[in-house]
């Protein structure tokens, strides 16, 4: 075990998979000599060679299409989006070509689409988005959004080994802000399993990615008031861990759904529906949603701060729900 940032943990996972399985290769914009806009593949091209760390033209559909084509020959491509916002440029290729291929004609698509998502870094409307719901809504796609370095490492490895297309959302706010001891080689985190981030008895916060840390801060404040908050980190957004969601609701009977993505059509709505289906009788209060506003991600710091869910929002809503 050695301490690593969220960014280093992803690098380690990717490196280890490329070392152990030569059928894994990386493809994307500026990932070779430059090492990527966020340096995830820094130094990779020198070690693995330009055949396995491939710089492409600025053409997201070509990146995904080429990755899919290579996957059809039995390889496991890892395609980088410089910013996840640009995934919109490859939407058709992902949704219609890749995600449907196994269902339609029995061709598996073992590719990883990875890159930085999320706000809080004043990136503005085109460098801060959370595009998960387009793909959670797409049958055939798996969607992963780790919150910790260990999970980031373990999940990138699982994503690469998976026989299906996996969208791997790295939260850019977390890249160098969080650190922890990360296991060495052999550490794998299964896709589809949520993680109990913090045990509590009074109410549950179901969340993922950077908001796990917002929930954590809020829980620390609430603990001092005697409110014991449980935090469930989903880690995988599709397929959702329905069992873990039902379990925490059955335990605390009160639930807050928290995400950085915008509100309407966000994952919270889907989780609320699952709770209705799996644990309606266990609820002792209304299901509460805390999300970003239904606007594009604004650029100016005071605007972005207003847009994003904050610790004080969580504390306020938790107090209210606790006293319900």
């Amino acid at each position, binding site marked *: 075990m050695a301490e690593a940032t969220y*960014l*280093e943990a992803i*690098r*380690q996972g990717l*490196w280890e998979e490329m*070392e152990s399985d*030569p*059928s894994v290769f990386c493809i994307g914009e500026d990932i070779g000599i430059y*090492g990527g806009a*966020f*340096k995830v593949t820094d*130094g990779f091209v*020198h*070690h*693995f060679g*330009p*055949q*396995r760390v491939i710089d*492409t*033209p600025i*053409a*997201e*559909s*070509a990146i*995904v*299409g*080429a990755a899919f*084509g*290579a*996957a*059809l*020959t*039995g*390889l496991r491509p890892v395609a980088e989006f410089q*910013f996840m916002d640009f995934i919109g440029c490859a939407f*058709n*290729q992902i949704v*219609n*070509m890749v995600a*449907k291929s*196994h*269902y*339609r*004609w*029995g*061709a*598996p698509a*073992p590719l990883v689409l990875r890159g930085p998502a999320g706000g809080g*870094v*004043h*990136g503005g409307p085109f*460098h801060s988005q959370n595009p998960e719901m387009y793909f959670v809504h797409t*049958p*055939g796609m*798996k969607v992963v959004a780790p919150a910790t370095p260990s999970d980031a490492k373990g999940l990138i490895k699982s994503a690469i080994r998976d*026989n*299906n297309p996996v969208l791997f959302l790295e939260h*850019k706010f977390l*890249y*160098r802000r969080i650190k922890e001891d990360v296991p060495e080689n052999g550490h794998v985190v299964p896709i589809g399993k949520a993680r109990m981030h913090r045990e509590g008895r009074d109410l549950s916060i179901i969340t993922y990615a950077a908001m796990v840390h917002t929930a954590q801060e809020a829980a620390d404040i609430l603990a001092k008031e005697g409110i014991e908050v449980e935090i469930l980190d989903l880690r995988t957004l599709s397929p959702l861990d329905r069992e873990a969601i039902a379990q925490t609701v059955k335990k605390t009977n009160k639930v807050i759904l928290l995400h950085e993505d915008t509100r309407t059509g966000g994952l919270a709505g889907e989780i609320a529906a699952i709770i209705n289906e799996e644990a309606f009788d266990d609820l002792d209060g209304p299901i509460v949603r805390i999300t970003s506003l239904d606007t594009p991600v604004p650029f100016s710091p005071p605007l972005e701060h207003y847009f994003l869910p904050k610790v004080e929002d969580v504390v306020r809503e938790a107090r209210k729900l606790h006293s319900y």
Partner: protein
Amino acid sequence: MATKSKPAKSSGKKTQQAAATANGRNGAAAKKSASSPQSASATKAPAIQLNQYGIPDWRLEQPEFEVIEVTAGREVHYEIRGKLDTAVPPIRPSKYLSPDQHVELYRWMVMNRRMEVALENLYKQSKVVGGVYFGLGQEACSCASAYALGPDDWFAPMIRNQGAQLVRGFHARDIMMQYMAKSGSPTHGKDGTSHYGDIEKRHMVSPISMLGDLLPVMAGVSLGARLQGKELACLTWIGDGGQSTGVSYEGINFAAVRKLGLVLIVESNLWAYSTPTEYQVGVKDLANRAVGYGMPGVIIDGTDACQVYDATYEAVQRAHRGEGPTLIEAKLMRMKGHAIHDAAAYVPKEMHEFWRKRDCIDRFEKYLLEKKWLTPEQNQKLIDEVEKELDADREFAVNSPMPEPHTAAEGVFCDGCHNIKPKYGMPKKARGEGKLKASEAAIHFK
């Protein structure tokens, strides 16, 4: 006299080679194009002209007409202006096909056309679910190109390239069952028409309805094989309409940059659904775009099976040598509507008549009979055998069951049903013993 290496000698190729040498990115493409395959037979063929952009034009006739939109009173329609009474051109003798191969290729074209007649009949008997798409007039383009592939090569047909599927080992019953949404169809009823594939044996990538998306995918197949030490030709087709999409540009450009084995046939079939080429693109010859991509381009008569075969064959050899993609523009006309519901009333009658006289199968048949590579008796026997095979396939398809409803819920994910491993060999491992070093470099956003 023009030779088969003509398209490879376009200025586009020189540019590309220079670029590849400068940045050293061309992977296995390091080999020089020293090989100069020689003609199989010394049949005399007319010289090949270069157009104003230096693109070789193999055609023996350059039709001179254009379609324009005309407003007459309260009605808007298309008219054709130009020379329509020119003589039908001969077949350009193939440099590579043996007499037997000519006949085999002709048989595929006959099978292609007659299978589509069978599909039309099945539709009229209400046995088809949805519509039927035809490649009438495009059989040479579908069959002769697929016929030029090597055994390991990949292909990805568009909706009008059903002949290519036959040539590459699928049966008419597969296609019939696709149209009838049967359980035994290649997609087990999950999708219809030509929307199926096979990555195990026949190396066919399934098309999707959105046009152009196959181009980067086929470039990627070539890339994936190259990583495994194999240079493949990856053949796909696109229409004059389909190439308008942005992803077409992305895919072709990527193939050109990486000198991948994409063999792209642009079927300029003059109608994109109901929109004539003149209202689809600003250039007269789509092959001219090869210059902009930095790759060789060639113009052929898409109704001449020999031209289709030879041009594809050369592009395939080029791909096998790791020298990069080729753009072949095949000029022809789609002789039916977009799909069976479309009577193509928007097509000027004289235009249809012009191309009907240039029918690819009629001309090829006549050519083979004249050459005495096929006797009238052999021809009749061939046709009878094709019909017999189609009858048997139709019986099989009609009598096969529909899928079990519950299978609709199956197969979204691969849950270990496939054992995924590199098809051609493991890519080379890491070069050194180096370890991952932590990166402290500045990043785009803190």
